[in-house]
């Protein structure tokens, strides 16, 4: 069952433009000139219930514009849009009871008051009865480990602690879809990981559909099952995260450490990125040389102390898509 259906969605912004200089300023005052910017061009996709979708792209690609249209904040300029069977713009209020939103840079907590007060307020705003609200707060407090934070004014929380409270706040009304716009921006590795785990847990336990935009390759690789890549307002890729990795960087990174000094003569398809006598970092083009072949060759060298095989980081994958290298990534 699809919970989000988007067909030929468009968004055009009209912005005022002005050339440099005093004369241009005067001219702009008398006769303003507008320029049309197409932020989202004819995009179509559907999201199934319980899916975890990453919506990725560089700055200004149209990610946030799309999320804002899906949550009823922005009017689309054209196309069709349905979220949980509702039209987000027409049924914004009705829809708001069933979706949760976290905008990484905008807080929904009261800055000077402890999070518990904001939770109570959100409970009232979402018409959650007092008993259910208390139960829900207890649940989320335990799950998100908020006991020590609940009564501390938000201004005294660290960014990581605050985001944990933000995500919890957006889940109070048990939404069917959670929209996360750059939720891990500015967080350190450990906190990022804990936020990711929480999002995954919510998906597993409650079947919450997750729609996530991010710059962070880790968010996508570690959380999402499917990725839509958007650039200049157009979808340039829509496929499982696994396939995305497979198609767009047919490479594995191998780090190897030897017990005895080695001089490596690499076979075809393997590139020596970095090496010393006791260690090496290799990049394997799996289309030419399979991992199996590469490992056999390495072991055959003798004296291997340690091997680590890694997928290339998501940054590289996205960069290669944007650079238009596509399947020819080398």
């Amino acid at each position, binding site marked *: 069952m699809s919970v989000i259906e988007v067909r030929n969605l468009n968004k055009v912004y009209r912005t005022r433009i002005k050339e440099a200089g005093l004369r241009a300023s005067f001219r702009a005052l008398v006769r303003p000139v507008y320029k049309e910017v197409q932020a989202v061009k004819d995009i179509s996709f559907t999201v199934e219930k319980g899916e975890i979708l990453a919506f990725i792209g560089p700055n200004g690609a149209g990610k*946030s514009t799309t999320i804002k249209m899906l949550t*009823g*904040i*922005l009017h689309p300029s054209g196309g069709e849009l349905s979220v949980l069977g509702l039209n987000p713009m027409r049924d914004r209020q009705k829809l708001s009871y069933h979706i949760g*939103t976290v905008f990484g840079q*905008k807080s929904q907590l009261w800055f000077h008051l402890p999070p518990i*007060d904001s939770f109570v307020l959100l409970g009232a*705003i979402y*018409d959650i009865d007092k008993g259910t609200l208390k139960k829900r707060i207890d649940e989320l407090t335990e799950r998100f480990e908020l006991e020590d934070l609940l009564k501390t004014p938000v201004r005294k929380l660290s960014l990581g602690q605050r985001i944990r409270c933000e995500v919890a706040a957006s889940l109070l009304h048990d939404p069917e879809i959670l929209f996360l716009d*750059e939720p891990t921006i500015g967080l350190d590795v450990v906190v990022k990981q804990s936020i990711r785990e929480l999002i995954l847990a919510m998906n597993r336990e409650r079947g919450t559909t997750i729609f996530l935009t991010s710059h962070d390759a880790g968010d996508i690789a570690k959380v999402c099952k499917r990725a839509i890549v958007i650039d200049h307002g157009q979808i340039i890729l829509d496929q499982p995260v696994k396939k995305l990795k497979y198609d767009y960087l047919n490479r594995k990174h191998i780090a190897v450490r030897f017990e005895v000094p080695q001089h490596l003569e690499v076979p075809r398809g393997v590139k020596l990125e970095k090496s010393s006598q006791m260690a090496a970092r290799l990049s394997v083009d799996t289309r030419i040389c399979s991992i199996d072949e590469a490992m056999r060759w390495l072991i055959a060298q003798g004296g291997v102390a340690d091997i680590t095989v890694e997928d290339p980081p998501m940054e590289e994958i996205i960069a290669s898509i944007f650079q238009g290298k596509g399947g020819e990534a080398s």
Partner: protein
Amino acid sequence: MRALRKYGTVLRLSLQNAFVYRSNVIGGFLFYTVFIFVFFNLWRAIYREGQVAGYSLTQMVWYLCMTELIMFGCKSNIYGQMNEEVKSGSIAYQLNKPYHYVVYQFFNAAGGMLFNLIIYGILAIILGMIMVGPIPGFRLANLPFALISALLGMVINFFFLMTLGLTSFRLEENFAFFLIYQKLVFMLGMFIPVEFLPGWLQGITRCLPFPYVTWAPARLIVAFSWEFFREVLPVQFLWALVSVLSALGMYRYGVAGIQAHGG
């Protein structure tokens, strides 16, 4: 019932939030006291004896205490906040919540306004008593009616300022309108009672919303009469309605064309 709980909680939280700004209160107390003291001396110099346009010196000083109190009670920064929220685009993030943005903002500000009204009210009474003593002919039983008028005045002021703030949806700079509004409220009823104005101007002033923010309630406190109450209350209701409708209209007009970029 649900709406009552929803906005009631907003009001309670905003009241709680008002207690955070303690240093603001101290600064405000100082400003209020200096302002009243300066004008107390001015009026003392003007009044040799008797009355001016029906106000005795005692009434005049209390009038000033009350109009200034209502202005402090009205202090909500709603104009600045609307401007900021519209220009920064953060208003967009509040649209997908199940509440009415305009109503939410009113209750969000109401806590702070109520808080101000109470604490500056205490200061106003102390200052008035010290400078000129009790208001002649004041009856506590009439106070609730004057308070209704004061609350209506605050509503009128709040929603007109909100409307002005929300014009930033379409105007790049609206500060001039804010200044004009502020000065009109100050000159037409706050600084001096409407009765002090020349006859022709009085006629015009009574047709405008500005004196109904402070003049009507302050006069009801210093010189209560049922006749005046019956005369001004319907007008205040009317202006309150106009102000609320104008804020709602401006909001709808603005939101229809909202353009929130990036994020």
